[in-house]
């Protein structure tokens, strides 16, 4: 049995148990992942995780409540027959939800999809065995200090409701997120991820990283606090702009005046005309449905040519503020954030940077003044001091504290023509399926304060 057939079978049985005006929403997510952690080119912790979760939401009129439970996927012999372990547990949960509904008031902001919009997205399983990949990684680490995490296996998500809608998403993917360390905090950060694992492609990534590592052997430079021309590589820019996902892209954040983009509305503050930001689900690697059953549009334009365009709107916000939902989840954050490409060829970046700081990675970002969209954070991994278009030396880590209004507004020199697809290696609770596609950015007067 597969996760899909298990989920659909369970959904059919549970949905058939609705009575009267009851509506059932079911959200499933599961994964079967090998996680192998490395340190100093050796194995720190190897393991396997198989998990299945089902969220059951029971609705009756404007009353609703939900419960999430782990599913077994297994069966046990009862009365001489193999019976599903999950079905009786799920039925018992629905009974508990029925009881709880009687104690709850009507919810004026309840909204769920009532049009049947079924969909399926799934990729073939083209990955080699995990231990084969581990062998390649161990070989790549010989003579070097390699540290990181390999996550590979299947990820599934499903939605079903008692109105007949069925949605399924499944992918088999690998994500190896690692660093080569030279000494202390001097390292090169690398990633190889996708639905295939090709030994030659992986080796090319390794070779490229080791080439960068050789530059780190130069004596590091400590630069004093001040304003510098900088180049933010795509990953660093994605992290910086990705801070908007901390409560700044959703309608609720605007209506409650907590978005860091508020000044784009109240003060007509604008970013540079080259800045166009969208949530591009169509080109992402995540499910195209959300937990109330709405499909996500191919894309939502959030900032258009430097001015604010639209908010991400969850069903709940749609009901609360009287607008139309646009496929956002409850947190109203983007899962496939994408910044439009610019005009600077990547090959000319060092020349156009001239003298300044080449920032490959940033770390531990946070708002230091949310209404001003001022963000502080650190440089990390391979960041370099550049003079006259030549890399001179790695820099010791520096703290920056700068507003997006300045960095992507009056101080933005330009964005690169080339963009990079970044697959989220995160695995809090479960493996992430979010992604980002960003160019690099050349910025003047970027403020370092420590």
């Amino acid at each position: 049995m597969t996760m899909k057939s298990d989920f659909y079978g369970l959904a059919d049985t549970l949905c058939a148990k609705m009575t009267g005006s009851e509506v059932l929403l079911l959200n499933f997510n599961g994964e079967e992942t090998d996680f192998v952690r490395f340190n100093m080119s050796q194995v720190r912790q190897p393991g396997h995780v198989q998990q299945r979760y089902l969220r059951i939401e029971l609705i009756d009129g404007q009353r609703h409540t939900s419960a999430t439970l782990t599913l077994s996927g297994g069966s046990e012999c009862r009365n001489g027959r193999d019976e599903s372990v999950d079905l009786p547990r799920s039925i018992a949960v629905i009974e508990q939800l029925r009881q709880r509904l009687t104690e709850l008031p009507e919810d004026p902001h309840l909204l769920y999809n009532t049009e049947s919009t079924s969909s399926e997205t799934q990729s073939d399983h083209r990955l080699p065995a995990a231990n084969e990949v581990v062998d390649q990684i161990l070989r790549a680490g010989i003579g070097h200090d390699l540290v990181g995490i390999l996550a590979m296996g299947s990820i599934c998500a499903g939605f079903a409701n008692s109105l007949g809608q069925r949605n399924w998403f499944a992918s088999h993917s690998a994500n190896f997120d690692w660093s080569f360390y030279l000494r202390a905090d001097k390292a090169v950060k690398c990633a190889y991820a996708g639905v295939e694992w090709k030994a030659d492609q992986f080796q090319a990534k390794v070779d490229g990283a080791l080439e960068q590592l050789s530059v780190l052997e130069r004596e590091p430079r400590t630069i004093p606090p001040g304003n510098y021309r900088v180049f933010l590589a795509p990953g660093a820019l994605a992290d910086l702009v990705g801070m908007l996902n901390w409560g700044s892209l959703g309608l609720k954040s605007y209506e409650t005046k907590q978005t860091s983009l508020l000044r784009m509305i109240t003060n007509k503050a604008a970013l540079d005309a080259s800045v166009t930001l969208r949530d591009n689900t169509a080109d992402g690697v995540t499910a195209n449905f959300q937990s109330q059953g709405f499909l996500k549009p191919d894309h939502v334009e959030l900032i258009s040519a430097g001015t604010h365009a639209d908010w991400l709107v969850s069903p709940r916000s749609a009901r609360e503020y009287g607008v139309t939902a646009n496929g956002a989840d409850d947190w109203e954050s983007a899962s496939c954030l994408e910044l439009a490409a610019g005009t600077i060829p990547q090959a000319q970046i060092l020349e156009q940077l001239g003298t300044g700081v080449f920032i490959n990675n940033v770390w531990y970002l946070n708002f230091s003044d949310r209404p001003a969209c001022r963000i502080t954070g650190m440089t990390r991994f391979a960041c370099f001091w550049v003079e006259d278009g030549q890399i001179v030396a790695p820099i010791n880590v520096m703290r920056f504290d700068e507003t997006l209004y300045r960095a992507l507004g009056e101080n933005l020199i330009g964005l690169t023509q080339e963009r990079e697809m970044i697959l989220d290696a995160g695995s809090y609770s479960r493996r992430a399926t979010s992604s980002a596609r960003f160019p690099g950015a050349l910025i003047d007067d970027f403020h370092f304060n420590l």
Partner: protein
Amino acid sequence: MLETIERHFRALAPAVDFCSLRFMAEQNEEIEVRQDVLQPVDTADDVGVMITVVDQGGLGYAATSDLTLSGLRGALEHATNWARQTASHAVVDHGQITRPAPVGDYAAHVALPWSQTPLSDRIDRARSQCARLKTDDRIVDWSASLWWISSEQLYLTSDGGRTHQRFEYLIPGLSVTANEGSETVSRRYGGFDFGRQGGLEILDQVGFDQQAPRLAQEVLQLLAAPNCPTGTMDLLLSPDQMYLQIHESIGHPLELDRILGDERNYAGTSFVTLDMLGSYRYGSDLLNITFDPTIADEFATYQWDDDGVTADRQYIIRDGILERALGGITSQLRADQPGVANSRACSWNRPPIDRMANLNLEPGDDSFDDMVSGVENGIYMQRNTSWSIDDSRNKFQFGCEMGHLIRDGELRGIVKKPNYKGISATFWRSLKGVGNPDLFEVLGTPFCGKGEPNQVIRVGHASPPALFADVEVFGGE
């Protein structure tokens, strides 16, 4: 269910050097009333096991939510395969680690159990406080929440170990936001910095019902307040900022797995090195930091860690000198250093790693007035709102919700957006005042992130207010 799990585990009888099973069942419920509307009431029941195998010097784990005998057998096979396949490449010979086989039961004290209070009462408790937050048209968002968690853990070892632990946690929260034009400020209580073990009695212990009017008043004061000034001055931190200061610039850099390099690809390394243990001056003589699992209601109090090691109180820093790091039995062997019982996993589906658990600043002698009166030019900051620190846990910048200027030994006007920055290696040496036991507050966060695969876990921090000399302070735009 526990009996069945134990029976299944004993039936597996694996032919390996060591095997353990860690069963975790966690229930939670969150009640939030926002703008006087009850938000969706969600519950969760998360149940699963992790089987860990040590064989031929290797270690492997496998976690599953399939608790049938065949499910556990499959997990055992995965764990055994990983242990054997990676044994010759493991960072340490796991067979050399002495693993305890503890036996016993532990249950956190709960006076007013959540589950024995009707749902309607729990909702009313949040609703009544939410209703007191909207006191002015400039208040644009407000909410009250109660987040309850119940956790049960069974740990079995192939050599006869069996422990059973039960915990209950409560995280209350209040939030109020005010706006005028493009300026927005918030005041919060609890939520991500306040959690304790126990039941609804915690609400009375911390005066939950008395917080809302104060927050509503303060948020309007903040909205009208000037920006925090820039300068080098004395800094007095309240416990709801001290918890974060301890967490980021003492707790994380002292995690032994960071020092050993495990976290370098994600959470980072540490400015602390093994040769500093036992001799390094981390702070002034007033700095006394303990790993303390004996405070009953603190967030991360437990009897045994997730490797079965008995937890006891240890000084980490005494009179300013670093005595030991925070490392469980695996890290202790790798580093050849003493540690603490802090090998912890966030759930059944993640392996144990070195975590902070309860890490506290021991009280000093000063009253609050003593500390304020000794300041000529300074600022008192309350409640963390922004946190950032480098990957070696050295250069930090933190922001608070509210500041009070201190001039000539007296608290003066309120300022908004107070931030400060410093360097861990030297910051604690400027500690010049520590509040007395009457000012000691038990706090903690449910959101400490770390590890690959990623884990978010509950940690406790108790602290009085503390005073630091000559800190760089600044405000917003």
